[in-house]
């Protein structure tokens, strides 16, 4: 094919420019063909080609190959001895990560620094990742103190009882998993610090 593209018919005028283009396209074709052949030799999952085999052991009568994990550091972090420390009645506040932009009530610590609409707009664009891409709808935005939340079977948000929290409720399909366990809820909640607008966490009831 490449040769035929380079060949001129008897009587054709010299067309060096066209011939150059033709040759270039022919070479490109060969390169693409080569890449195609190379790709066909590679497993779909490139990691599959990684060679294991540092050492072997026997499990249930069969010799199996273990992958290398490199030289592991030693010693390991120490195993903590004894019981855990006593839990404080009031946990230190988590600050969360930047999220909703504050726009109002900047100087009044008892009021939210953004509107319910601000929260709904932000949360609509940032749904819980437990939705895994499925559609979600913001159904409710409320502002409660941390102590109010405790009476409504909502998660405990660390910090002072008077801490003002914005709660955004979603409807949709939200999946929670653990080994051997999966459940899907039609409700999810996100929590934001009502003063800073920071994202604090997610809850799937």
């Amino acid at each position: 094919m490449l040769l035929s593209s380079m060949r001129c018919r008897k009587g054709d005028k010299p067309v060096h420019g066209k011939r150059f283009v033709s040759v270039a396209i022919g070479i490109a074709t060969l390169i693409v063909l080569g890449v195609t052949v190379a790709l066909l030799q590679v497993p779909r999952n490139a990691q599959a080609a990684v060679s294991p085999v540092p050492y072997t052991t026997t499990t249930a009568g069969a010799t199996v190959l273990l992958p290398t994990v490199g030289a592991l550091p030693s010693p390991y972090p120490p195993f903590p001895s004894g019981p855990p420390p006593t839990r404080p009645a009031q946990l230190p506040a988590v600050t969360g990560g930047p999220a909703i932009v504050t726009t109002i009530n900047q100087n009044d610590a008892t009021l939210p620094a953004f509107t319910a609409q601000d929260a709904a707009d932000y949360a609509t664009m940032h749904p819980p990742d437990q939705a895994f891409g499925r559609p979600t709808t913001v159904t409710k935005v409320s502002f409660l103190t941390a102590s109010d939340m405790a009476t409504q079977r909502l998660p405990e948000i660390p910090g002072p009882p008077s801490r003002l929290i914005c709660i955004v409720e979603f409807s949709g399909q939200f999946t929670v998993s653990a080994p051997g366990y999966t459940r899907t809820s039609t409700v999810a909640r996100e929590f934001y610090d009502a003063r800073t607008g920071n994202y604090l966490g997610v809850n799937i009831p």
Partner: protein
Amino acid sequence: MQGTRSFRFRASLPLYVLLVIAAFQISIFPMSVSAYSCLSVHCYSKTRWAGYARGSYTAIYIVHISDSDVAGNRIDNETWLLDPNGPGQCNGLCWVEAGYTFVSGGNFSGGQGYERLFYAEQNPVSGFSELVDFTALYPGIYPGDYYGMAGIAIRQDATQSYFYTTIQTPTGSYGHYSSNQFNPSVNGGYTFNANFIDSGQELSGQNGGYSDPASWNSNIWIAPDYNGYYQTTPVDQYNPGNSSDVNNPPTNGYWSTYPGQPNSYGGTRVTYTCC
């Protein structure tokens, strides 16, 4: 004129061939390949130990993990403490979990697109919760942490009212109290009995997950007197070719866990390069 047309056709022929080959390549190497099926039911490569415990410890090798799948899918190297008799909002299983994670990026709630430590729980009052603190409690993995160990201990207090999780990495130490909703006086009388300890890797989504080979070392169960004992015999682990004793292994994940050597020191569980 006829000759010129013929030349044009012949000169263009390689271009047509090129287009056909390109179309062929696109068809067999699409941009997104469903490499595994872990979407609605997540995949786990893990080892389970059974028996009543007051807590657990494992040292997880910190390796690079990532996930380019859409929609907040994730890959975690972690450990769980589980009670399979969870009432109320536990819906059958209460647990606490901790480790490090990579949640795929996108317009989601936060903490996506980088490797970070995490803690989550499912309790009988409010169900599943994951609180985040990107600056203090659970930061990103720092460059000096890679190829070091994350020592993760989850301890339940003597009255079985809360958990205290510690994560020690080469660059920092972090402590986290569980919510008070594991407290029987708060949750209506339920006491969390840790009957299972799981350690391993969790994967969600269909493609784009990646992990360097990881391992879980020096696995210890913590007795009610807070003495620690090396784990010996797992009740459940993934063996190649046997998918019945693992919770939905990925079809092309190349995950495997094996008892390490020496098994008397809590074993070493290895997860091969994922996915």
